[in-house]
């Protein structure tokens, strides 16, 4: 497999505080990578760099081998990196269709009048959800859906931007029961469409079986990498809490 995104020796400081130190890792095409670490380990900072919120203090990002610089979240979106926030950033009072098309509504023009093409958007939403195998009616109010269903809507929405990499921040936060199954289904579906996924979590048990690889960060640095199906969980816990030094990843 070829590397989609490479993070090379990325550091980020906020004044005297070093949030990230020489982070190097890569994400392959159609790969699901987990990023775990305790609160304050530097996960959010790294994700914000990938989604264009922060610029790295040093180091670079490569997409398809080419160096890229993101000056805003819009830059990251244009490069095919889409972010799903922990709270999913949906409008709960609007229906599914309105959420899927939020910010890029279809309209009919009648002279100076411009009216929403509600039938068109509802039909297209039904088609999108159908294609993804999501059995939710387009006119359902998003606030009435379960956590897993809302996450599917957030993913369906993100997919409309044709992303190559989907960043999911604490994807299990919105899920209650059956959470791993729902997430597993979603991530498998994304991979089969050729989309790479980076799942950020502070609870590795939640994403253990969902990821092909899990990268462990601690105190702003990558301290190890885990093949979830090969290593016992104790190893991961130890990595997270610094009881073992762990091996540096070799993918750089």
């Amino acid at each position, binding site marked *: 497999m070829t590397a989609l995104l490479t993070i090379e020796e990325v550091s980020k400081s906020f004044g005297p505080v070093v949030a990230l130190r020489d982070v190097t890792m890569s994400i392959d095409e159609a790969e699901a990578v987990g990023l775990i670490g305790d609160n304050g380990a530097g996960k959010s900072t790294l994700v914000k760099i990938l989604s264009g919120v922060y610029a790295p203090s040093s180091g670079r990002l490569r997409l398809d081998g080419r160096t890229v610089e993101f000056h805003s979240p819009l830059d990251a979106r244009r490069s095919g990196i889409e972010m799903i926030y922990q709270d999913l950033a949906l*409008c709960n*009072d609007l229906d599914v269709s309105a959420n899927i098309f939020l910010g890029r509504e279809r309209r009919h023009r009648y002279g100076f009048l411009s009216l929403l093409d509600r039938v068109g958007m509802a039909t297209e939403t039904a088609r999108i959800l159908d294609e993804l195998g999501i059995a939710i009616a387009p006119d359902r109010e998003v606030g009435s859906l379960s956590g897993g269903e809302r996450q599917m809507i957030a993913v369906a929405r993100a997919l409309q931007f044709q992303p190559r990499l989907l960043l999911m921040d604490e994807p299990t936060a919105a899920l209650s029961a059956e959470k791993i199954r729902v997430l597993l289904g*979603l991530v498998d579906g994304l991979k089969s469409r050729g989309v790479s996924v980076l799942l950020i979590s502070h609870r590795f048990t939640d994403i253990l079986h969902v990821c092909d690889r899990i990268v462990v960060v601690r105190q702003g640095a990558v301290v190890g990498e885990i093949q979830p199906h090969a290593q016992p969980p104790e190893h991961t816990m130890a990595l997270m809490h610094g009881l073992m030094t762990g091996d540096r990843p070799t993918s750089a």
Partner: protein
Amino acid sequence: MSQDYTGPTMVPTPAAVAPGPRARLIAVMGRRPGGVNPGLLAALVVLFIGLSIFSPYFFAPTNLLNIGRAMAIVGIASVGETIVIISGGFDLSVGSVMAASGMISAYLVGAGMPLPVAFSTSILVGIGVGLLNGAIVGYARINPLIATLATLSIVRGLSYVLSGGQEIVVDNETWVNFGTDTFLSIPYIVIVLLATFLVAGLAMPRTLFGRYAYAIGSSARAARLAGVAVNRWRLAFYVVCGGLAALAGLVAVARIGYAQPSAGAGIELDVITAVILGGTSLSGGRGTILGTLIGLALIGVINNGLTLVGVPAYWQLVVKGSILLAAVLYDELRRSRHDET
């Protein structure tokens, strides 16, 4: 692990939902979140029947049109307020804008300006106050209650300054007659009231303006992340509210024949009561223009009914305040129930 997976997948399944006739109908009819509360409608019907039995004067065309006339000023302003509250905002300055609008037009007409010039100036001032409100709330991130409380005071003060605190008598017959004349026995001001509701009621579910009012009120952050220019749209919502308040001010002058700097003082209580009673959520994202119309009708009928059955005017304030409290408590109850599901 993935072999025994039986939960939802993203692989196409025949169970997926196609847009049925119901979804199509809803898309066409425009069901909006927080539709009309059936309890409210029932209360209105019960009041209608009760008052018709209690008072022989209530269910007469003249009295019903009087209710419409009495509620026109509050009603026109409540349409703008509904839009602002749906978008997660609040506007306390509507009463002051009414007074300023009436004073400015009365002053200009008195100085010999033609009516269209005077009215346009008033509406522009209303739009200007709306821009100011929207900018303070959106760009300066000041709480809308405080922001519009400040503009309430500023605009009210300027209305007094304009005439040294005096009222201005309007001798323009076109303007004053507009307050009493009828078309097919329907008062012009009731026609203006209904037209305002009709345009806003049709526009909210069908335009980007309405869609973004709901979206921003529901989650301003989600809207911003989706690329919606949230602060610019906020300006638009407050501008419409300010412009409609100015229109209501012109109607108020037409009704009584003179402009007062104290006009519309405390009217925000009635305006906000109509909106909240109509089912618009104080936390934004939910509400309808039709709901506000029903809320307005309820207040109008209660005011009228209390007068007909001889309740002193002072008590009407107590009753109105209690109704507002009940409506807000109901909204809170409904919201907490909604959150639990």
